[in-house]
């Protein structure tokens, strides 16, 4: 059934080696007077991803060459650890699902590496940045390629670590470090869920081998209750990684990192790992629809919430961040309702257009010397035509305007919701589509149209170097046309991606009337159109920031969720720690020591005072003892 292909182990290895080399170079030379040249770093940095990309292509075609049910390439590098029934191999699995992820991760990763060479120039920690970036890519690839949950967890935590390191990259500023801590800790909460989920899964069905293929075989032994527990725990992990309610709070703050990082990690790849994981475990989720629907609802509500927040943001990256959260919500809605291929396809397209948007935003920021407030921009379309063009394409894709890629993937999800009878999810989905269109083009209009709001920085603005614009263009093409890969039947397509993914997913496509499908498409397009027009009406001619009042103010402050978390979680935690170490530790836990010491001293002084020094008293002691003993003894004689 599956074939072994040893070379797939190399795919994550290249970036990791790159990371090691770069890291050592930087670590050993950064304190020198003149650091190594950025060219050297840049080239070294880009080798790894590019190589991985080519290997990914090889994998893809290798799989394509195989008959559909045999499209499983495995490679067990070595036994990682084996205890009792628990056998964990450091193994890799390339199947249609992972190969798809592999392709766009390596592709976009390479592009963003190239872009970063331009973006990060003149940064003193140039080398460190690329070391981290490579490390991230390596971990991401382990995550994708891992042949079992435990190996996946390695990548899972690895990407979390890299995101921490990269968010707190400008570590002199406390806020950035705090944002990094927040990201890592929240992710850790998610990982807790993942670990517990894995443990339950192992005790349930893991004894026959703890990798996906064996688990898939034994999945039928899974009792419903354990299944629900496992699914929900794993989903907690997904929430942490993919920023879903209630763990989404770290992602907006994560924008503190350099923009390419936001593009690569916090938009294109890492955050979608949760979706990928759910799809990976489709063979379990398919067993317990209840858990699936919970996933779907959490997803769609997240989408709604994030969309609301997105409508009121003023920081260009925050807008994109919330749009990411919102799109992730879509994806979870998709995988939640067992439309795994649709969810994964949205992951795929979203990677392109969201990376595109971020990189575009990056070049805007670059052009304006790290100005991120959209209300200080405006009219940039003649200054940055290339960027503008690409951004518009990205925006259209994000907004889901046909025929751009976003439209097809999103519509696939919404349609599956409709088809599988989750009308509520579908309705909210449509609503969110409209809001998405609104806030996306609000951003576009405010940034690029109208009149410059900050003349002086406007004058200095100029198109970034081609090393940055080239990736934009490539991504723009991707964002524009990847949609056709999964054309639904109604457009004469054949759902190519879905069919490609079929072997590695456990799903069934409901057959419904074309009318219903048509109705769904119309509805979403209409919603998008409405959102677009409102956005144009309000901002098309250039407008100043409106006063946020009432609900808008509420939304502008993100429903005070951060404040609430701080109040009910963080502060109590710290306070509790303080109470323990200041009060409980000395006065409660240590009480047995204190008390016995006190007693000891007291008894000592008491007995000391018995030694009065008078012979007669000593004799009296003797006689007291004597009489007591004789009382005791006179029992024993009759």
């Amino acid at each position, binding site marked *: 059934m599956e074939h072994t292909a040893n070379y797939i182990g190399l795919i994550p290895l290249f970036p990791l080696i790159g990371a090691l080399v770069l890291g050592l170079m930087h670590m050993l030379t950064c304190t020198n007077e003149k650091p190594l040249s950025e060219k050297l770093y840049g080239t070294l940095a880009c080798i790894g991803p590019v190589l991985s990309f080519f290997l990914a292509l090889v994998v893809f075609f290798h799989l394509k060459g195989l008959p559909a049910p045999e499209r499983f390439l495995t490679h067990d590098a070595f036994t990682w650890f084996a205890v009792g029934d628990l056998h964990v191999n450091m193994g890799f699995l390339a199947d249609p699902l992972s190969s798809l992820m592999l392709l766009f991760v390596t592709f976009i990763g390479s592009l963003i590496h190239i872009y970063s060479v331009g973006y990060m120039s003149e940064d003193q920690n140039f080398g460190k940045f690329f070391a981290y970036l490579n490390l991230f890519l390596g971990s991401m690839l382990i995550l994708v390629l891992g042949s079992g949950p435990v190996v996946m967890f390695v990548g899972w935590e690895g990407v979390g670590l890299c995101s921490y390191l990269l968010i707190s990259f400008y570590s002199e500023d406390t806020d950035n470090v705090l944002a990094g801590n927040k990201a890592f800790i929240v992710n850790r909460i998610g990982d807790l869920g993942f670990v517990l989920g894995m443990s339950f899964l192992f005790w349930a069905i893991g004894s026959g081998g703890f990798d996906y293929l064996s688990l898939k075989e034994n999945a039928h032994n899974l009792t419903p209750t354990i299944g629900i527990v496992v699914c929900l725990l794993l989903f907690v992990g997904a929430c942490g990684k993919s920023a879903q309610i209630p763990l989404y709070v770290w992602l907006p703050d994560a924008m503190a990192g350099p923009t390419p990082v936001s593009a690569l990690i916090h938009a294109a790849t890492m955050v979608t790992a949760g979706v990928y994981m759910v799809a990976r475990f489709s063979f379990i989720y398919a067993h317990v629809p209840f858990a699936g629907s919970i996933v779907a609802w959490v997803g769609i509500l997240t989408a709604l919430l994030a969309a609301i927040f997105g409508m009121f943001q003023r920081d260009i990256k925050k807008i994109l961040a919330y749009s990411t959260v919102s799109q992730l919500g879509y994806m979870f809605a998709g995988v939640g309702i067992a439309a795994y291929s649709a969810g994964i396809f949205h992951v795929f397209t979203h990677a392109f257009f969201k990376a595109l948007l971020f990189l575009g935003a990056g070049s805007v920021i670059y052009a304006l010397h790290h100005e991120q407030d959209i209300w200080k921009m405006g009219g940039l379309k003649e200054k940055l035509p290339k960027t503008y063009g690409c951004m518009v394409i990205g925006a259209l894709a994000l907004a889901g305007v046909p025929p751009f890629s976003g439209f097809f993937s999103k519509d696939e999800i919404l349609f599956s919701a409709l088809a599988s009878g989750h009308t509520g999810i579908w309705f909210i989905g449509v609503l969110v589509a409209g809001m998405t269109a609104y806030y996306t083009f609000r951003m576009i209009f405010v940034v690029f149209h109208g009149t410059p709001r900050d003349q002086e920085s406007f004058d200095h603005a100029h198109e970034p170097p081609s090393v940055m614009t080239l990736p934009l263009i490539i991504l723009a093409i991707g964002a524009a046309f990847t949609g056709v890969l999964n054309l639904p039947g109604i457009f004469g397509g054949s759902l190519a991606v879905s069919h490609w993914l079929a072997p590695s997913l456990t799903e069934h496509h409901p057959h419904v009337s074309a009318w219903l499908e048509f109705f769904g498409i119309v509805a979403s397009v209409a919603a998008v159109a409405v959102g677009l027009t409102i956005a144009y009406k309000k901002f098309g001619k250039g407008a100043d920031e409106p006063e946020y009042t009432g609900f808008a103010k509420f939304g502008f402050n993100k429903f005070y969720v951060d404040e609430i978390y701080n109040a009910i979680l963080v502060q109590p935690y710290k306070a509790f720690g303080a109470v323990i170490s200041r009060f409980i530790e000395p006065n409660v836990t240590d009480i047995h020591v204190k008390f016995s010491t006190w007693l000891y001293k007291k008894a000592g002084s008491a007995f000391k005072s018995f030694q009065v020094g008078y012979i007669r008293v000593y004799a009296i002691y003797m006689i007291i003892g004597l009489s007591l*003993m004789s009382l*005791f003894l006179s029992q024993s004689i009759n």
Partner: protein
Amino acid sequence: MHDFMSLLPLIIIGSGAILLMLLAAFEKIEVELAAYISMAIFGIGFVVQLLVGCGDQTVLFEKVFNGMLVSSNFTMIAGLIILGCGFFTAMCSHTYFKINQFCTLEFYSMMLFGACGMLLLSLSQELITAFIALEIMSLAIYILVGYDRTNVTSTEAILKYLMLGAFAGAFFTMGTALIYGGAASTKFADISTSIVDGSASHALMIGGAFLLFVALLFKVAAIPFHAWVIDVYEGAPTPVTGFMATALKTAVFAVFANFLALNDSLHGDWVTFLFYISVFTMFGGNLIAIGQNNLKRMLAASGIVHSGYLLIALVAISAEHFTGSVIGYYLAAYAVGTMGMFAALSYLGGKGEERMNFDDFKGLAKVRPYSAAAIAVFLLSMAGIPPTAGFMAKFYVITSAITAGHMALAVLGVVSSILSMWYYLRLIINMYFHDSEETFETSGSPLASAATFVLVFCVFAIGIYPIVI
């Protein structure tokens, strides 16, 4: 012949005592020489005792002494301990009296007489003999305690010891009388037989043994008969204190064990009694020791605690096959440790025993690291920390207790040794973790320090090769 051989150490010591007494009467020699002579006598006695060895339970000169002296392995061990302690005491006294000038020749003869009494006591198998031996020992020790006539505290010490000792002696005689009444004899063997054939009156045995034990418990300073020991130890000259603490206790415990082990039902009557006594002794001793600031007083109190442990061993002896090995080993270990402490004190104490408090020894390790190390070793041995002798001793005692089915006693013993930890560590902390105000200049001969280091060696030797068992 063998009987004579096993009496030989006793004879050597006795004749040595008389020899020294005569020398003293005619004032032919110097005190140092007397010290050397007594060392020699003790040494010879020790060697002879070691060479003689002896099998188990042989009655000496059955015809002549008519079964009043019996020697066994146990008595041999006791004899060895007593003689060894005497030897080291002589060494220490030599140094001590270089520093404090109130010694005359009789001192050493008294010491030898005392040792003679102790040996007799450990051998005796007859109550009145035991009583007389006890009195010989006690009288000699009284004299040694009060030897410094110019010093009022030592006079007070002798007064207390003498009065209370005589008081206890009276109990001993009354007890002997009752036992005589009960068993129509005072010889252990006859008592045993008459208990077995039931001719002995149980009540009289109980009462007599009770009064007897009062006296013995007084001598080993078991609570509540302990109060004298602390003052007397403080008042006595340091080497004498060492001698009392070790040799005297050994002898008394020897006779105690011999008497208890003479018959099983007799021992059975007293298990509960001794159980409580030992518990009270251990804990009371600890609690007394906590508050003490004077080292000799602290050691006296810790001596009480160790008596408690020995009483545990007494509780646990089985009269059927009594070897006394546990008691013997514990006595040896305790003797080595305590003797070492007093040896060190007797040359570190300085003139007129000016340095006797815990605080006087602050920073000793900085100035005299080796002495400090030795003292630390002795303290650890008394505290029962491996690999010292004290640990093995405690191990054997607790083992015997549990084997005899007294788990509770074992646990209590362990708890009490937890209590004892602090005042041992306190001195170590003073010696090591503080800076020294003074330079512990000591005059006098190196004999005492030599004794100290020999004893350090013994502590480890006995601890690592518990051949006695």
